[in-house]
């Protein structure tokens, strides 16, 4: 009986030590983290007093389609990343005989005030004779900067269509780009897209209040659809279109779409039927 008591005490002591050391280990991991640790550095521009870093969360290069960018400005003097830089972006495509811009969002600070984010929708890749650049406007220590940097925009390696540039039946040119799900699942996914119209060659404002009807199909398997999809509608808060995308298995899916304006007129896209296996407006995903 006595032995049992000692064994119990010993056990408790050991257990306590184990749990203590575990706690210690946890504490030690709380070092200051690099907020960009999980991001890829696409470009780093080195200027006299500062550097400008451009990151992507999912890509290692600039790709066509919806491209969220993360930016930081480092003051070389203070060795600190700058807050309140009032950053904005202006992308530009230099074609052989013309120039045009692209949809672009305002730039805002993330939860970390030294990390700024905004998106660009590149409609096309660059090539030998045509290229993209981005003009970064920002202020640093009271000075306004405007830096234009040439970038390489490429088509995605998987060749899948994630951006549509088209003329609607209302004679307006639109850009519809796939935002997410970034990692689709066999589930009811939250689906997001952005819709801009081309007002001029330089202005691509967000279109509000339309509907993007979706009809995901698997062409590789009898072009079957999936249940319980929810069409994308405009969310004023995020300024994006959100709905539900149902994917009943992994594989290649073609998300057929119809763009419908606020009066119910179909601007682009057709119903999928036995005779018409796909809409002219679609995204492609694979997982």
């Amino acid at each position: 009986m006595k032995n049992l008591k000692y064994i119990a005490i010993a056990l408790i002591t050991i257990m306590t030590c184990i749990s203590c050391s575990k706690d210690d280990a946890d504490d030690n991991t709380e070092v200051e983290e690099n907020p960009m640790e999980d991001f890829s550095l696409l470009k780093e521009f080195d200027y006299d007093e500062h550097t400008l870093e451009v990151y992507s969360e999912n890509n290692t290069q600039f790709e066509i389609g919806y491209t969220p960018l993360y930016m930081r400005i480092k003051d070389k003097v203070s060795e600190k990343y700058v807050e309140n830089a009032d950053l904005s972006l202006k992308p530009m495509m230099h074609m052989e005989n013309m120039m045009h811009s692209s949809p672009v969002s305002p730039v805002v600070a993330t939860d970390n005030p030294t990390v700024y984010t905004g998106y660009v929708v590149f409609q096309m890749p660059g090539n030998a004779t045509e290229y993209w650049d981005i003009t970064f406007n920002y202020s640093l220590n009271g000075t306004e900067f405007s830096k234009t940097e040439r970038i390489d925009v490429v088509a995605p390696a998987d060749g899948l269509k994630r951006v549509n540039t088209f003329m609607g039946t209302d004679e307006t040119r639109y850009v519809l780009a796939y935002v997410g799900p970034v990692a689709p699942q066999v589930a009811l996914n939250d689906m997001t897209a952005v819709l801009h119209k081309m007002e001029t060659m330089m202005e691509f404002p967000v279109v509000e209040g339309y509907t993007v009807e979706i009809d995901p199909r698997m062409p590789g398997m009898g072009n079957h659809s999936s249940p319980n999809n929810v069409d994308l509608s405009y969310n004023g808060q995020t300024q994006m279109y959100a709905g539900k995308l149902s994917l009943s298995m992994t594989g290649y899916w073609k998300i057929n779409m119809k763009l419908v304006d606020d009066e119910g007129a179909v601007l682009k896209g057709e119903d999928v039927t036995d005779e018409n296996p796909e809409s002219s407006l679609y995204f492609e995903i694979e997982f």
Partner: protein
Amino acid sequence: MKTYNNGLGLPVACRSLMLLLCVVVAVPVLQAQEQQLDSLPAFPVHLDEVVLIGNAKKLKHQTGQKPLATLDEYLEGAQKVTMIKRGAYAWEPALNNMTSERLVVTIDGMQIFGACTDKMDPVTSYVDVSNLAEAQIQSSQQGAQFGNTIGGGINLSLQKNTFENKGLSATIENAFETNNNLRVVGADVGFESKRFYANGDILYRKADNYYAGGGEEVEFSQYEKYNASLQTGYKLAEGKKLLASLIYDEAKDVGYPALPMDVSLARAVIASVSLEQDSLLSMFGDWETKLYYNTIKHVMDDTQRPNVPIHMDMPGWSETAGMYSQAKYAASKHVFTLKVDGYYNRSYAEMTMYPNNPNEPNMFMLTWPDVRTWNTGLYLEDVVSFKNDQSLLFSTRLGVHRNHIADDFGFNSLTIFYPELERSQTRLLKSISGEYKKSFNVFEVAFGAAYGERAPSVSEGYGFYLFNSYDGFDYLGDPNLSTEASMETHAAISYKEKQVELKLEANYFHLPNYIIGKVVPEFAPMTIGANGVKVYTNLDYAQIFNTSLQAQWRPFNRLVLKARVSWHRGTDNKGENLPLISPLAYKTSVAYSRNGYSGTVSVNGNATQEHFNPAYGEKQTDAYNVVSATFGKRFFVAGNSLYAKAGIENIFDTNYTTFNDWNNIPQMGRNMFVTLSYSIN
């Protein structure tokens, strides 16, 4: 899928006969065990039925089944059981016109669940006659001793020895059938002493395609199967023994002509250890405690099929561990049986589709999302005997049944349909039944009533796009299904004297929350060419009625005439017909035996199927009858027993299909068989 072979008739029969002769000549030392099978001891005590299967030692010389028949054929010989056929192999038993999910099918009390989402591997396909002693068939809640059930229970009890000092014994068995070139080879070696026994057996079956009546080859009806088992026992003390059992069963290259896919592998390992004691705490008797484990792997395969729109792999796994402990307690007029049991099952099945465009990634889904089922129950039975040949049987079971979706991928898949889906669900399952019986001289009456419940099966609760080739719909499970219930009542009256026995019986099931697939038009099917999607749904109720009349006449000792006619009806709450309900059916036989010779002639048939339902893919089946005959002889060779039996099934090569033939595939035409078994004691 089926081709017409007009060369059949004579040539194949001749070829087969020659092969038969070869078998007989080439294996002169061949022997075997006298297998006597068949039917129940007259009319059984309760409404249960026992089909004796393999154990030569226990069996009287009876005519009837062919030895080395498949377990499926034995079960088909049972009065209340019908077999749903998707080919020549792995028939699915139905009892009271209810199938797997409404029955509790156990192997020596062990729970085991098929791993195929399309019911291509009923539990009964994972054992063979060489493993078994008998099949106990209990109607309605009388099957509740083995688990939660609606329609009843089928328990396949394994062979066991009795610690007699017999030493070594061996049996060799061989059979051949002409229609599908079925070859069966089996061997059994046993050692038995007063303290220890060990019994090992192997059985191998291989069949080619069979031919329907008229010579139509039924393509993809071949199969190959191995079964091996080892049963051992050790007597710890007088009235106390330890038993262990291991079964390995593997079927390969199994064709399913009624389905769009075949099976490349169906494998089961079934193991158990049990302790049996004649008494416990000087109060209880027949104490038995068993621990068991079984694991099944099932792989569907469409690579042999021509014109497959998309190639797919569909493997499934089912793993079950469980235990039970039961004892009896006798007190004056009462005999109580007390049982606690529990099992844990995991069912996982997946589907990979290979697109014709090689640049596209494979398509993958989980058809069973790793469902973990935990079921534990308490069963109590009391048989009370009164004066004047009256008795009362009372039984009750209380079970707790929990399902849990363990796989995230599968859970997320189901949230497409059930956004509020919860991972786990627990149900309380209740069963209660009573039966009264009284004898008056040559008459006996029995009547009873029962209530029981069951949880939805894995497919009914969690199945994800399971294609049913019968009605051509993709099926989806519903995790929020209500527990299905059964209110059953039955009555029987029998007359029995020396030469004549008669029995009339009927049962009626009212089934609240009956689970069946209902079309949901807004869902599109996944399978290419499917008609739509059905979701498992609770009907308000369904009802099933079964009645039968059996007669037996023994004008003199060596001759027995038997006849049975049965009628069945199943409808849903709107009066629509339920699927797979038998039309008027009959079985008749004449058996004669003398001096080791035995012979039977039997005629089985159905009337035209009046009640069928095209909404479940059913087509009306015509009336048919099939005539068969067998002849057997037992010899003694050097003090050992040689038993030979031969017969012809479907003598007139009738082309027929029955209500429970999946997609109305035609059944086997004329078939001749010969079996030899030789046992050395």
